[in-house]
């Protein structure tokens, strides 16, 4: 993390700084670090799950009735533009210092990433697949659950990865309001005491958590969609490009899922 440590870790003092960070981390594992880390995990997992629970039905509905999709998209994008700090403050009178004050706004933000990905994933289901399922006697509901959603899964998980990483990094803002998480270490142990070590520990742990969660989601996708494995081997440039659509670390905001121009066009023409 050269850019984050740069301004402080000036070369001559650098070794000492690393030692200081390690010292602080080791002597504070039990007290602030472990419980804050646990809080951070809870405050990031809950919003993503909640967001997914809302985005799935919303996305399915928007894919089914495309006329409403622009309105839905505008709605989730407006939510996304709300400053998180303000939402936390505004919820405080109602939900107090409970986790919900952080979870509800963070869940709202995930919608802007998850809903377009659910819709794009479902739109990408080839027509012949849908027709085959119907011909086999699948009811619309069963076709959705057993055929369309599984085929859309790589795209949905792509969105889930972006949403998870974004949420984990955003939880820290909740600490400005006093809602816990690793940001609390950054602010109370670092900022207020003018002490860099806790800040570095908080940032590193937050980044590590994001990468861990991202890796777990990749494993989940491999496990859930075994048919996409090995698609990338020995590919021509064309099929490699197709495979890259399923490779979400590169996902733009709406996921790398859709063919490049489509999400842009849809968003703008809305």
């Amino acid at each position, binding site marked *: *993390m050269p*850019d*984050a*440590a740069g*301004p*402080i870790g000036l070369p001559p003092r650098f070794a000492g700084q690393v030692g200081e960070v390690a010292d602080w981390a080791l002597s504070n594992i039990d007290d602030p670090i472990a419980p804050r880390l646990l809080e951070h995990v809870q405050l990031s997992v809950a919003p993503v799950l909640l967001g997914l629970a809302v985005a799935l039905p919303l996305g399915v509905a928007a894919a089914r009735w495309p006329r409403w999709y622009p309105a839905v998209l505008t709605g989730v*994008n*407006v939510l*996304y*533009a*709300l*400053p*998180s*700090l*303000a*939402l936390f*403050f*505004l919820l405080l009178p109602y939900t107090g210092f409970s986790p919900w004050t952080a979870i509800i706004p963070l869940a709202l933000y995930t919608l802007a990433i998850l809903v377009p990905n659910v819709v794009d994933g479902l*739109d990408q289901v080839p027509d012949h697949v849908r027709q085959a399922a119907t011909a086999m006697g699948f009811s619309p509901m069963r076709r959705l659950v057993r055929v369309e959603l599984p085929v859309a899964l790589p795209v949905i998980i792509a969105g889930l990865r*972006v949403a998870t*990483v*974004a949420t984990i*990094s*955003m*939880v*820290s*803002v909740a*600490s*400005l309001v006093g809602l816990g998480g690793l*940001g609390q270490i*950054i*602010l109370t142990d*670092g*900022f207020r005491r003018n002490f*860099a070590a806790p800040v570095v520990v*908080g*940032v590193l742990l*937050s*980044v590590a958590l*994001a*990468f861990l969660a*991202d890796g777990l989601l990749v494993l989940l996708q491999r496990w859930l969609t075994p048919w996409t494995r090995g698609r990338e081997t020995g590919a021509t*440039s064309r099929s490699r*490009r197709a495979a*890259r659509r399923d490779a979400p*670390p*590169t996902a*733009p*905001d*709406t996921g*790398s899922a859709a063919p*490049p*121009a489509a*999400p*842009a*066009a*849809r*968003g*703008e*023409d809305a």
Partner: protein
Amino acid sequence: MILDVLDWFTRSEQWTGSGGIPVRFGEHVLYSVLALVVSALIAVPVGLVTGHTGRGGFAAITVANVGRALPTIGVLTLVVLGMGLGLFPVEVALVALAVPPILVNTYEGVRGVDPLLRDAAQGMGMRGAQVLLRLELPLALPLILLGMRTAAIQVVSTATIAAYVGIGGLGRFIVDGQSRREIEMILGGSLLVVLLALVVTGLFALLRRLVVARGLRARPAATG
């Protein structure tokens, strides 16, 4: 509550002086535009070159992913501890936030150009830089603009934290409203941020109309 907010907006002292809405709005726009311009100057060239050559793409994407995972508050605090309060830490934090979406979308946009088109361009005698600037850049433009729009909205919404390190912007209303327990002030400040985000969305729609080739704009609409 709605009436309180309306009342807040219509009070005359909101519209004048150094703490008034126009000044705060201007500060917010200034911080955001500065961060966005710096980010674009970093991310677009890197994305174009890595996307065109295919070299360093993995590194660029990795940097972008780390950037995405960085907690903004942490970056802001580190820079404040190192260099003191002021505009600089805010800009560093906002640039760290804005570079990833622009970089990833630029890279993906260039990589996504059909190899057949690239072959055709080379067949017409274009050299590397010409292929990049006259074929790949225009084709990648919709995706680059989308990345910039995402970055801009995140920056506008996050620039509110500038108030925490003692400078202005619309975040002042949110932070000061909290410390004075004036809900209508928090709401008013937030509404202004949302308004700014909507203006940004509109501006990017306009920009897209102006700079994206007509053929590219028509195609997705026809198929989708």
